[in-house]
């Protein structure tokens, strides 16, 4: 039966993370943007026990539906922090979707520690060559979240995926980004890195699609949080700010903008929840739901963030207010994951029965 109700546990988690985001993240967003997330804040977040919340319950997580609530709240506090505090990042998702039970259990234990960081290295050509029982990886990966020093790295090489020790790769230069600066994004290189066959992840194409879908849902949940932040800020500001003798929210053109923003936030959230629930239920339907949720959230959040800057006018453009940051961050969230153009191919491919489109087959987006 269709229900938008949250369980008591979900409500409690949402409440806790909202408090954390409001008290710890929002006031420090500029500081985090300048110098990244400090170790102390990582520890505080780790104490909430939510570092691996996106995993299925059998791996000790809460499932994607609950994780979507968590990451909406985190991004409501600060979108950059929402990604950066998610220390293991997408490595656990790659392990549970692409790896077998033993591989997942073994490597997840490495990521379930305070301050542990994981990475999934996608973008860039790395070759995988057989060498007896092992594989030899060579090449460079770019735009890797936590690429500056992850404990565990999942590397896509040729048509394969491998899990390697962080110490086996060479961290490269940190990228200088115009948005989401709290997130450490760097290149990394592998030079004759030897990987045992036991560390090759053997998931099939469905598993690969589900991995991307999980990543999309998490990113989309953050877009919802970002959009809500922008909407609420603009809603409050336009009721304070007066022009021509009245609060500008009383002007119909402004109030209609606010109504549109509210609709975009809610529509994106509905899509994220549905996709998360579908992925939690297993199978492939969640893959298409996630692609649609990502498109909805990317477009909706951009629109809301843009409207928020617009409604604040000049104040929206200066850094005294957070809205200009959200307009930059929303674009970064949209291109950090699978871009909408690829999602469109996935959705259309499903409807036209030509199969699920992969970045491998079509464009090569930045997937981290």
């Amino acid at each position, binding site marked *: 039966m269709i229900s*938008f109700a949250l369980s008591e546990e979900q409500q409690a988690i949402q409440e806790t993370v909202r408090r954390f985001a409001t008290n710890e993240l929002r006031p420090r967003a500029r500081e985090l943007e300048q110098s990244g997330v400090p170790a102390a804040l990582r520890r505080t977040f780790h104490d909430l026990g939510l570092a691996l919340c996106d995993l299925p319950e059998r791996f000790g997580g809460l499932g994607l539906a609950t994780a979507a609530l968590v990451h909406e709240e985190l991004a409501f506090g600060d979108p950059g922090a929402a990604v950066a505090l998610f220390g293991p990042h997408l490595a656990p998702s790659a392990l549970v979707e692409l790896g077998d039970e033993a591989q997942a259990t073994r490597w997840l234990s490495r990521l379930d520690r305070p301050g542990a960081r994981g990475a999934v290295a996608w973008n860039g050509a790395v070759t995988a060559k057989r060498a007896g029982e092992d594989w030899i990886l060579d090449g460079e990966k770019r735009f890797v979240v936590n690429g500056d020093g992850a404990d565990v790295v999942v590397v896509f090489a040729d048509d394969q995926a491998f899990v390697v020790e962080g110490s086996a790769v060479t961290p490269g230069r940190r990228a200088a980004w115009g948005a989401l600066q709290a997130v450490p994004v760097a290149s990394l290189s592998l030079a004759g890195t030897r990987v045992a066959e036991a560390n090759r992840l053997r998931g099939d194409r469905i598993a690969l699609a589900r991995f991307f879908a999980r990543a999309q849902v998490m990113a989309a949940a953050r877009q919802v949080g970002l959009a809500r932040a922008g909407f609420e800020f603009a*809603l409050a500001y336009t009721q304070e700010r007066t022009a021509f003798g009245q609060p500008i929210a009383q002007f119909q053109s402004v109030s209609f903008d606010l*109504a549109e923003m509210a*609709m975009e936030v*809610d*529509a994106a959230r509905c899509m994220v929840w549905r996709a998360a629930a579908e992925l939690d239920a297993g199978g492939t339907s969640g893959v298409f739901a996630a692609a649609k949720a990502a498109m909805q959230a990317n477009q909706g959040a951009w629109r809301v963030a843009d409207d928020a800057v617009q409604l604040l006018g000049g104040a929206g453009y200066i850094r005294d207010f957070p809205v200009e940051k959200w307009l930059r961050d929303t674009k970064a969230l949209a291109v950090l994951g699978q871009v909408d*153009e690829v999602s469109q191919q996935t959705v259309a491919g499903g*409807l036209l029965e*030509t199969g699920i489109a992969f970045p491998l087959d079509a464009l090569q987006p930045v997937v981290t």
Partner: protein
Amino acid sequence: MEFRLSESQQQLKEMIHGFAHSVLRPMSLEADRAHRLPDDFLAKLGMMARAFPGGGAAGLTANDDAPVAKRSSSQHRTTLVASEEMAWGDAAVILSIPGPGLGGPPVRFMGTPEQKERYFAVFKQPGVHFGAYGLTEPGAGSDVAGIATTCRKDGDHWVLDGRKCYITNGARADWVVIFATVDRALGRAGHRAFVVEKGTPGFSVGKIEDKMGLRASETAELVLEGCRVHERHLLGGEEHYRGSEGFMGAMKTFDATRPVVGVMAVGIARAAHEVMVDFVKQNYLLSRPIPRYGALAAKIAEGARLLDAARLMCWRAAWMADEGIPNAKEASMAKAYAARAAMKVASDAMDVMGAHGLEESHLVEKWYRDLKVFDIFEGTAQIQRIVIARRLLK
């Protein structure tokens, strides 16, 4: 958090889909051209609707006079599931299901027990019976508080004078709920609602509208000229109108109907989207990979996204209604979002199919025509945004 239908909802959906596919679709074009549905079909439709008390395809027009509290807790959601499938077949049919129609809710919410008994009794009689809702006037649409139809007490009767327009099933209705004012200066407090029965002297049908879409649905002008009705016809009796509660009560019905209207738009647009996808499969795809036609893939995917988002917004509002959570804002969001999304999807389907979309046999041009009114009736796009904004700014 759950987004799948219950087993019984799934069964209902499949059953209505089968009906929509094998009965509604084949008659859709002819009914559109003829401006009417066949009488024997309406009779069968009425029997079908009665078989689903309070649910089923009834949606807007449930033959259901049970108090809200006594209905099943999933009724709003189930109604949405049924309405989407019916609209997928032909939306004009939903508006033509025999029953009290939009006239039902005001009688249910405002009527005295005797009035409910009297006016709902007719739908238990054999034959085809309709109720209707007469609020809109040539000079008062969205601003319903501005109605100019007057009512004047004369002994134990009321005398009504004015014109009503765009009244669904207005000409064939057994009775119509007519909103009138005792004094325009009083605004909403001056409003009174009467049930005026067919054949009442001074009550006549003006022209039947020639519409852009939903042409199989009857839309009539009603004329009241010195129309005398006994005070028993005043909904709720005099007591009901101390203050403006009576009118607000009538407005509350929109919280239940707007998500239904929204999901009907989703059903129509889904039909257009499916035809577009089939068209692309047959005419463009050949054996080439889709990226060759990236722009088509984009339209197909965007349409699928919009339909899902719109449906979820409607479901959310219906879920709130089922749970007894106030949903005026969400109901308006659902309708506003769905109507616009649906129009965009249908427009894209026309673009993709080119001249083929204009061919009547494809039905796409009909759906495109049908859809436009979803951004207008039950509150225009602008009225929905006013409702949403008012609640945001409170």
